[in-house]
């Protein structure tokens, strides 16, 4: 429709819309940077907790009395599992908090009535989650490596980061699906997001090979992006493998499906929330 009110509406060209959306995306990332800066001590405490938690898992390899070379390999496998658990946890937490945090702060109505598109808003949260998650995962990884004294002479860190970045597309897609939960259920939605994260890692072989799982879980593992991220990262850190197409293509396929599905699920959830008056601050 052309401007019915004369000069009150501006002509929004496609170029202008793209520019505005990119600024909106930048705004989401920028806001999260502000919040990280303001909650820096809390972030440091959480980082220490994650390092301690990962150590409790990696130390298991020390207690089972195996030869040093085998122990080093097991420690590395457990470490990769622990780091990916932490990385995935951050992505799910940040994307899920798209709604939960804004509801808690009371800004949800202002954000959802702003003219930025929902995909840009959610992708902005995802982009920040990946950047923040990668930095944090690297810190946890190297802190544990130094503390335990793991030897990683062949590790291909570049390929490992690249694979995690590719896997992140799928993780963000799944995160978008869980982000809708606090929108539909303000009281229990965030916790249900953690359930989704746990279930995904259980079937993906987070601390064990997928082959030890019951058959039906192995089938589910095939559609979990974490399966390929864990498998690929272990090969890259232990044996210096590059980006294996066998890990990359399933991640790209899952990503190609999970992002549109995630956006659609969120759209349906937002509509439900608008219909039932749930798009408002808590308290």
């Amino acid at each position, binding site marked *: 429709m052309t401007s*019915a*009110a004369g000069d009150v509406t501006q002509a929004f060209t496609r170029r202008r819309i793209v520019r505005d959306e990119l600024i909106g995306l930048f*705004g989401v990332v*920028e806001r999260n940077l502000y919040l990280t800066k303001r*909650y820096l001590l809390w972030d440091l405490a959480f980082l220490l907790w994650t390092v301690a938690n990962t150590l409790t898992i990696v130390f298991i390899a020390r207690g089972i009395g195996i030869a040093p070379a085998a122990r080093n390999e097991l420690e590395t496998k457990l470490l990769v599992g622990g780091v990916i658990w932490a990385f995935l946890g951050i992505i799910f937490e940040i994307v899920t908090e798209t709604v939960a945090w804004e509801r808690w702060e*009371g800004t949800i109505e202002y954000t959802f009535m702003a003219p930025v598109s929902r995909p840009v808003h959610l992708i902005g949260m995802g982009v920040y989650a990946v950047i923040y998650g990668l930095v944090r995962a690297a810190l946890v990884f190297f802190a544990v490596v130094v503390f335990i004294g793991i030897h990683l002479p062949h590790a291909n860190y570049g390929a490992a980061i690249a694979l995690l970045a590719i896997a992140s597309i799928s993780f963000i897609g799944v995160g978008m699906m869980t982000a809708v939960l606090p929108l539909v259920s303000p009281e229990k939605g965030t916790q249900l997001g953690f359930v989704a994260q746990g279930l995904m890692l259980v079937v993906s072989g987070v601390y064990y090979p997928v082959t030890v799982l019951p058959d039906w879980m192995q089938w589910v593992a095939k559609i979990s992006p974490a399966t390929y991220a864990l498998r690929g990262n272990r090969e890259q850190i232990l044996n210096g493998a590059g980006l294996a197409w066998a890990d990359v293509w399933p991640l790209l396929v899952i990503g190609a499906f999970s992002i549109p599905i995630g956006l659609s699920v969120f759209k349906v959830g937002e509509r439900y929330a*608008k219909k*039932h008056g749930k*798009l408002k601050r808590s308290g």
Partner: protein
Amino acid sequence: MSVSAVEVRDLEKVFSRRKGLWHRRKRAALNKVSFTMERGECVAILGQNGSGKSTLVRLLSTLLLADGGEARVFGYDVFKEARTVRRLVNRVSVEASFFKKMSAAENLSYAARFYGMGPRETHQKIPRILERVGFPPNRRNESMENLSRGMQQKVALARALLTSPVLLLLDEPTTGLDPRSKQEVQTFIREIRERHDSTILLCTHDMKEAEELADRVGLLDRGELLFLEPVADVLERYEVDTLEEAFFAATGRTFEDEKTEDDEEREVFA
């Protein structure tokens, strides 16, 4: 052809709440509400808590979907052309609603980005707009949690104006403020009216505020719009001297009357 700034026709909103395992209790927050606002006009909607004022504001802000009727902002359908409407509208509500750990400047930057304002633009505009609402420049980078309610509400006004809305929705903007802050906010609303091409919908339960700021005053009671006309016409119609008396004449209750259980439920729903 001139288009009304706001055109609301037979607007309905019903909320339901689970009552037991199988039953849902329904309450009409808005019941076939119709009115129009012309460009540049300031309309005040009066009503008790739970009367449907906030529901009306949230519908016009595209935060709710209606169960019936239609609403248009400058000719654009609020429910079908929501993104266009969002560019034209902004609001100030009773709660200032900010990221409490972030500063006033950071909160305003965040809000401005969603309206396509880049860092260069906000770097110039934010100090200017904060100065206009009387916010002390030396407190611009302080966390919102360290600011008084009055200060926070000034930042909320700045946030709304930063995006140059042609329709400004004010949902009890002075409720809970001390007399001085209230006065300052009201003065600023007057200034917006005089200097800007903004249409203002002011929802309030402060009758004096409505009378002083608005061209026309409406009364929303239990989801129904009982009247919407200039104060003088309201007083003449009900043959009374004050808006409080007009409320009594129109509803059979005083503004401070105790609420029934039904009213309280409506307040929770709305």
